[in-house]
């Protein structure tokens, strides 16, 4: 959208400064800063960690947070702060893969739901309905009872659980766009349906797709954590945020830090993504209404 503003014919030579042209808003900036800090600390885990994530120290079992162990230690004396940092690498990577997978598949299905052959569309409609109505945790339980849980299975589960949400949004926008005059005009001019879908309608989906990407990523962080917490996700000893909390589950009454602190990492990460999503949505809305005024 900022491109259309930038190439506007009336644009004065020296426009407003770059940061103003990006149309940033407070939630977007706050979310982006928070996410950057979290991403950097996950990437720089080897530099920041005060101990190895799997270093067992049986002389320092379940110690409360202190100067030596900022987040305390777990049931076998592993440094929780280091585990949370390394767990971030795993959780963010898995969630990222799940987000990209579910978004790609969801977009494909959504576009098919709007532009597919007449017999394809109702099938996709129903599939979206069923998928949205079906509880993902139950789906995960059914599948992991058949296939041994592992990280690839977890990513597959994420895609299965989240594609419908993306598909519904993409389908709704594409259908709305399809009814507009320019699409009808292209149709009358003999442009093929595939070409209309890809070159004319798909670009209008993109801003919403960016919002969806942020929101889905937040959802996937929570999803990874939930399934790993239930023992159906990333398998020990690999640290992931949900897995770390599962380790601490049995000590919840005596060692609060084992569940509360890793959870804080999850909450902050998805909060940053939700803020980015909200900010992007507000930005898209603002730019749209401005276009409408012109």
């Amino acid at each position, binding site marked *: 959208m900022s491109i259309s503003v930038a190439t506007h014919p009336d644009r004065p030579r020296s426009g407003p400064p770059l940061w103003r042209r990006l149309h940033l808003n407070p939630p977007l900036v706050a979310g982006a800063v928070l996410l950057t800090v979290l991403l950097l600390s996950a990437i720089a885990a080897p530099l920041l960690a005060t101990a190895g994530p799997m270093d067992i120290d049986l002389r320092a079992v379940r110690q409360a947070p202190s100067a030596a162990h900022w987040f305390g230690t777990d049931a076998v004396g592993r440094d929780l702060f280091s585990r949370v940092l390394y767990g971030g690498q795993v959780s963010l990577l898995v969630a990222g893969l799940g987000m990209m997978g579910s978004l790609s598949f969801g977009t494909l299905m959504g576009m098919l739901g709007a532009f597919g052959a007449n017999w394809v569309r109702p099938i996709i409609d129903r599939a979206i309905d069923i998928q949205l109505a079906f509880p993902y945790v*139950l789906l995960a339980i059914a599948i992991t*009872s*058949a296939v041994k849980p592992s990280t690839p299975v977890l990513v597959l589960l994420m895609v299965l659980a989240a594609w419908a949400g993306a598909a519904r949004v993409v389908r709704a926008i594409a259908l709305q766009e399809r009814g507009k005059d320019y699409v009808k005009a292209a149709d009358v001019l003999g442009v093929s349906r595939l070409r209309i879908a890809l070159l004319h309608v798909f670009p209008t989906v993109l801003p919403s797709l960016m919002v969806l990407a942020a929101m889905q990523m937040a959802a996937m962080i929570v999803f990874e954590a939930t399934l790993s917490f239930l023992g159906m996700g990333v398998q020990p000893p690999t640290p992931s945020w949900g897995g770390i909390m599962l380790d601490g589950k049995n000590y919840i009454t005596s060692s*609060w830090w084992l569940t509360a602190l890793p959870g804080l990492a999850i909450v902050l990460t998805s909060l940053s993504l939700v803020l980015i999503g909200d900010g992007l949505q507000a930005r898209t809305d603002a730019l749209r209404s401005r276009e409408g005024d012109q």
Partner: protein
Amino acid sequence: MRSFVLRRILQSVIIVVAIAVTVFIVLRLSAGDPARIRAPVFARPDVIEQYRRDFGIDRPLFEQLLTFLGSAVRGDFGQSFRFQAPVTDLIMVALPKTLLLAGVSLLLSLSIAVVLGSLAALKPRSGWAWMSSALAAFGQSAPVFWSGAVLVLVFAVGLRWLPSGGFSGFASLILPAIAVTLSILPTQLRVLRTSMEAVLQQEYIKTAKAFGLNQNRIIFVYALKNACLPLLTVIGVDVGYLLGGVIVAEVVFAFPGIGELALVALNARDYPLIQGITIVTAATFVIVNLLIDLLYVKVDPRIRLERT
């Protein structure tokens, strides 16, 4: 109208059957031989063969499927491996508790969404609006099991006001219901706020204001009626999410519902139980969705006209 209802009911039945068949086939094909799981580890081959005959898995898959569907229709999902009891009985004990927790959470979340969402739409620069945004963002970010754990830490371990888990009456419902509510509230809050903002812009509200009608009456009667329609759709869509949250909350709070049962079944590789739970829960969803669809038609005459 009647044809619409009939068509929706038929669709629902087809969906349930499709889910049942899928669950059956996936479990049979990938889970391995139930007789080997059920039988003692060092059982003699003829003992295992006996188990096979008992489960009926010596017959062709298609015949097994028909037998399974036939008894499922009569409410018989076989015997649980783990509990040595009919799957249906186990589900019938657990399901009402799950539905109770889901119902209480939904009611709580809807009440908060309606009140807070309306206030936020009415006064976009007030503390209410800020609170509703903050609550939406937080609820969306915090996993049910984490907010559940924190609630336990604060109210059960720290303050000792409420039980930390199990099921012993109404008090046991409070913490799990709050945890679930936090997770389903954000969507409802956002949707109600947006639709309320849109409704407040409409001519009929302006007219009502111009006529000097009571402000509260305008908002909570005239505006809310229309603003609630999108909320109804969201509930339908979110039923899966709601029950997902309830299942997780059950695990955290050791609440003896269907989710706890499912996880026990999963860990014990209790296939008949998993099969039964999946199908019964899926059927519950489909029925709830059906009811919401029909309710929607009842509430919004425009849809009725469109479809008949």
